[in-house]
C-alpha cells in the first residue's frame, strides 16, 4: 500500500482499489498504474502526504493512499505490469 511507503522511497503503482467515479480525478492527474510515485513529505498534523508523481507534486490523503497498491521501483524494473 502506498500509505505505508517510507519517505523518499520510489515505488511503482500496480493496482488501484478505488471505487467507481472516484478513480477518475486520480487518473486524470497521472496517477495511473505504471506511474512512479515517491512520498516527498507528510503535511503537518496527520494531513495529506505530498507525492512526486512522475516528477510532479500531488497531495493525497492517507485514505486514498491506502487504496493504492504499489511495488518497489527496483523490484518492478524489468517486469511489465499490464494490469
Amino acid at each position, binding site marked *: 500500500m502506498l500509505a505505508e511507503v517510507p519517505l523518499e522511497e520510489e515505488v511503482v503503482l500496480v493496482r488501484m482499489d478505488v471505487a467507481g467515479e472516484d478513480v477518475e*480525478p486520480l487518473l*486524470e*492527474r497521472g496517477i495511473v498504474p505504471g506511474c512512479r510515485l515517491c512520498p516527498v513529505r507528510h503535511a503537518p498534523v496527520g*494531513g*495529506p502526504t505530498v507525492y512526486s508523481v512522475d*516528477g*510532479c*507534486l*500531488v497531495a*493525497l490523503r492517507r485514505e486514498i493512499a491506502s487504496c493504492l497498491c504499489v511495488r518497489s521501483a527496483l523490484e518492478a524494473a524489468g517486469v511489465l505490469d499490464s494490469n
Partner: protein
Amino acid sequence: MADSRPLVLLAGPPNSGKSTLFNSLTGLRQRVANYPGVTVERRSGVVRLASGRVELVDLPGVHGLSSRSLDQLVARRALLGEMEGGRRPDGLVILLDSTRLSSHLMVAESFLGLGIPTLVVLAMADELDRRDGAVEAAELSRELGVEVALVDARDPGTLGSVHSFFEALLTGGEEARACPAVAVADSHVAQSPARAPTRPLPVVDLFSARRDRARQLGRAAGYRAPRESVVTNRLDALALHRIWGPVVFLGVVALVFQTIFAWAMPLMDATEATIRISGRYLHGIMPDGWLRSLLIEGVWAGVGSVIVFLPQILILFFFIALMEDSGYMARAAVVADRLMHRVGLQGRSFLPLLSAYACAIPAIMSARAVEDERDRLATIFIAPFMTCSARLPVYALLIAAFVPAGPVLGPILGRQAAVLIGLYALGLVAAIGTAALLKRTLLRGRPLPFVMELPPYRMPSARSVATRLLDRAKVFLRRAGRIILAVTVVLWVLTQLPRTPDGGSPPIDESALGRMGQLIEPAIEPLGLDWRIGIGLVTSLAAREVIVGTLGTIYGVEAEDDTTLELRAALQRDMDLGSAVALLVFFAFALQCMSTVAVMRRETGGWRWPSLQFAYMLVLAYLGAWAAKSIL
C-alpha cells in the same frame, strides 16, 4: 463582422498558462495565478493579425472532458459548439505545461481528434530550460500530426508560431490542416453529447493505455523531464514542515487579519477625510436647496460611507493575490485540509472561504475549483457567513456607538476590537456548524478523493497582482456607485412624499417611507428595533452596507462635517445595548445581499439553494438577535 472571425478555443489542463497566453495574444487582462482552477468562465478576446482578426476564447483548465465538474462542462460545451451561440470552433489551441509533459500529454489526448485545426503549445519553455529539461517540438509535431510550438507564454516575442497558426486559419493555409482523428477510441467526446449514462468500466485500462501512448510520444520527441526545482523543495520543507508548517500557516492568517484591522486604519482615515473635505467643498459651492440636500447629505454621505472600506478590501485581496501567485495557496490548502476535513469539507475549500472575508461573490465563483459537487455546494452555502467587508461599515458604526473604548488585554487588544473579533468568530462558528450539519443531512455522501496538485513556487508578478486589485476596486466602486446611489435616491424621494398641504416635505414619520417602516415594525419589535432600523433592514437586502446610508438619510442628518458622529448620537438615543447587539448578530447571520443570491442561483443552477440559504440564514439571524436581546 463579428461572425466571420474564426473562433479559436484555448484549452488544456489547469495552471498550464492558458490565461497568460491569452493575455499576451489579446492584450487583455484575464486573471492569472499560480493555483489550479483560477479561470472558471470562458472569456473571449480578439487577436489582431496582419490578415485579419481571430476571436480567442480562454477556457477553464480541465484534465479531461468527462463533464464531472462544472469546469469540465464549460470546456466540453465550448469544444462541441454547444454554447449559447452554438458556434463550432474553427480552431483549437491545446496548451500544455512543458515541465509536466508526461501527464499533460495524456490530457492532450482527450482534446485531439476533434476534427478541428489544432495547434499544441508547450508553455513554460523558460522553466524547462532552466531546470535542464528538453523536448523537440518538431519531433512531437511529426508524432502528433499537428503543429507544436514551444513558448514562454509571458513573452510575446516567443509567440511567432502561434501567430502563424492564426494566419493560416484566416487564409486557409497549409498549417491549418484539420487534426487527424488519432487515438480517440477512449475519448469521452466521441460518446453522446449528454452525460454518458454508465461509463465503460475499465476506465483504468483506458488511462493505462493513454499513459503508454503518452510515454511513447514523449520518448519519440526526446522529452527529458526537468530536474525538480530546488527552490520549491526548500520552501516546501518549511511550508509543510511538521512544526513550522502550521506556524507559517497561522502566521500568514494572523498577518492578514492584523493588517485588515490595524494597518488599514490610516488608509481608511485618509479616505474618509478626503470624502469629508470634498463633501464640505461641494456643499460650499452649491446653492442651498433640495438638490444640494439630495446630493450631499443623501448621495455623497451614503456612497462615501461605503467607499471608506475600499482600502481594507484591497489589502485582503493583495494578500490573497500574493499567496496565489507565489504558489503558497496550494500549500495552505494542503495544511488546511486536515482542519477542513473535521467539518466535512476539504483543503480546496480554504481559498473560497478565505476570499469570502472580502466578498462572498468572488468566493462563490472560485468554489468551482472544489471538484466534489457536494463539497462545492457546502462551501458555497457557508461562504456568506464569513464576515465580508460589506458588514464592516455596519459593525463599525454600531460598535463605535455602543461599545466604550478601553483595553481588554492591555495595549494589545482594545474592547472595540475584541467585539469585532467576536463577530468574526461568530460568523466562523455559524459556518462550521452549518457545514457539519449540511454534510450530515442534505449533502451526505462519500466525497471524491482529495487530490491537490502543487505547482512550483514562482515569483508573484507585480502586473498580475496590480490587475487583480484594479479589477476588485472597479467591481466595488461600481457596486457602491450603482446600488447605493439608486437606493439613496429612492429613499430620499420617499421621505419627501406625500407633500404637505402647503407644499413642504412631511415630517419623517408621516412620509411614505415612515409609513412603510411602521408596517414592518411589529416584526422587529421583539428585537428592540424601531421602524427606522426596519427600513434600514429592508434596504440592506440590496447590500448590507446600504443600511448606513439609509439611516443617514432617515435621521435627516444635516451636519456638514462628520456624518457618522451625528448618526452615532441618533442611534444612541433610539437604541439600547441589547437591541444594538441584536442588530449586530442579525447582520452577522442574515443573507442581505442580492448579488450573492444572484451568483448563488447561477452557480447552483436554480432557486432551490439560494432560497433555502436565504430562509436558513434569516431564521438563524432572527433567532440569534432575539436571543441576544433577551439575554442582555
